[in-house]
């Protein structure tokens, strides 16, 4: 008598060997290209942490702040896809962290939620903040790479062990791998003049540090919380664990007040939320490929435009919202190649405003 499992195996073989199956559409070249881009993005993301974050902030965030248009930390989300989703939210935060910003990127199934202390925003290159990163897929999370070092502490979170890391003082490492910098430090800012406006000490930063906790979630993904603190004591382990154990996991689609058609540049990150009391409805989309960065801001018409450093800018007000397109040259791209996705004015023409009423906003922003 044939066992049902054997029958099922045979049937599966027949089903999978379907002679009427369409020709494979798997594209090896595209896998190579996308894979290379992801590797580049990861390297860039690693460079966005610690001192690297401050270096890139010199190129992007600080000029934006100087122009009065408060940019959040440079896009730390991975290459994103549309629609935009968040995979986790904070359930509890220290009382000082009242301004929340969301960075979205569906690529690699990762999202970032950052909560700031608004009183520290804009006063220096660094601010006090807690950043939650959620990876929903094994293989793309910090445990999959080689960047998680030897844990220095093991704590218990919801009954499961949590890896915590402590790095030596004055050594900054990539936080996405779950690195802890538990000791305050005072590090001279070595950026060239004009790319950050003096040392952190000159900006009033006497100490800052980073504490992280990283853990495997029940669904098989991973999460980490990085707490950066400026001019204050490090959070204790109990607070870090409480933040972690109260994280609410789940998919949240994020409606946005615009659609964009015909833009071939890959979406790199989206930041939405309240970053600073002065900018309660901040929205920034970043597109990036091979040194060309496009930024699209949506804000109130009364806010100052950023017009100083981008290669091209264009803006207009539609239905009570002001849309601003900026093109940046981040890697000395040849001038002629900077507009390969269109000029700022052309990109602006491809934007459709959905108005200020959230009821009309959409989660499907990027149109073919």
């Amino acid at each position, binding site marked *: 008598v044939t066992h049902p499992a054997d029958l099922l195996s045979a049937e599966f073989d027949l089903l*999978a060997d379907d002679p009427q199956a369409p020709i*494979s559409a798997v594209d090896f070249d595209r896998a190579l290209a996308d894979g290379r881009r992801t590797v580049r993005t990861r390297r860039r993301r690693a460079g966005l942490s610690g001192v690297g974050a401050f270096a890139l902030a010199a190129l992007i965030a600080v000029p934006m702040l100087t122009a009065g248009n408060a940019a959040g930390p440079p896009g730390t989300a991975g290459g994103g*896809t549309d*629609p935009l989703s968040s995979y986790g939210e904070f359930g509890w935060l220290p009382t000082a962290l009242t301004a929340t910003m969301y960075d979205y990127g569906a690529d690699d199934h990762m999202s970032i939620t950052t909560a700031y202390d608004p009183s520290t925003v804009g006063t220096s290159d660094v601010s006090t903040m807690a950043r939650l990163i959620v990876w929903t*897929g094994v293989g793309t999370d910090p445990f999959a790479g*080689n960047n998680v070092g030897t844990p220095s502490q093991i704590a218990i979170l919801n009954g499961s062990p949590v890896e915590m890391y402590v790095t030596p003082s004055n050594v900054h490492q990539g936080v996405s791998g779950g690195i802890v910098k538990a000791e305050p430090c005072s590090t001279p800012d070595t950026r060239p003049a004009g790319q950050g406006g003096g040392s952190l000490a000159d900006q009033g930063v006497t100490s800052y540090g980073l504490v992280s906790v990283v853990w495997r979630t029940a669904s098989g993904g991973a999460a980490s919380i990085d707490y950066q603190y400026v001019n204050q004591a490090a959070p204790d382990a109990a607070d870090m664990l409480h933040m972690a154990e109260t994280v609410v996991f789940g998919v949240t689609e994020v409606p946005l007040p615009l659609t964009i058609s015909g833009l071939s540049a890959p979406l790199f990150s989206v930041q939405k939320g309240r970053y600073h009391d002065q900018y309660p409805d901040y929205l920034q989309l970043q597109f990036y490929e091979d040194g060309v960065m496009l930024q699209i801001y949506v804000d109130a018409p009364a806010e100052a435009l950023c017009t100083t450093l981008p290669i091209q800018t264009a803006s207009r007000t539609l239905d009570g919202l002001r849309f601003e397109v900026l093109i940046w040259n981040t890697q000395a791209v040849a001038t002629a190649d900077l507009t390969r996705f269109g000029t700022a004015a052309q990109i602006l023409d491809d934007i459709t405003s959905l108005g200020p009423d959230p009821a009309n906003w959409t989660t499907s922003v990027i149109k073919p």
Partner: protein
Amino acid sequence: MSMAPPGSESEYLEYVAAKVPWLRRVAFLLCQDWHRADDLVQSAITKLYVNWSRAAGVEHRDAYARTILVNCYLAEQRTSWWRRVLPRAEPDEQIADEVSAEPDPDLRLDLRAALAALPVGQRTALVLRFYCDLSVQETAELMSCSVGNIKSQTSRGMESLRRILDAEPELEPKGVRP
């Protein structure tokens, strides 16, 4: 035997060229739609490239690639992301349409429709156990759940298949689970 340097792009290309047909069949059994299977394999081999230096060092590279593929599938199921971005009908709906509009006595289509009607966990457990020939323990590790859970999913999946196939005339769209 590959002559490409371990961990190199050329070795990666040799590997995926040889293994994509197999990965595609596994993906099809998981999702019941050849187009979506291609999308899953595309995602999986892209992630495989990203982790290729690591994959090149593992003892069972096929298992590593299969794990990436299954995780891509399960992650998509969790987030339902694919439902929002694919411009075609959901595969289960397509199958249901085929079954209801033009009943096909062919057992393959029956099994395909019955598989599509299973919950994701049961379907994945059955495919891993009886197509990929994984043990209960291996399946549990791949799906990040307990051995008991896999035994239960497998048992219920087999029972559900039997029940659905026995009740073929009742296999209408309302009975097809997303």
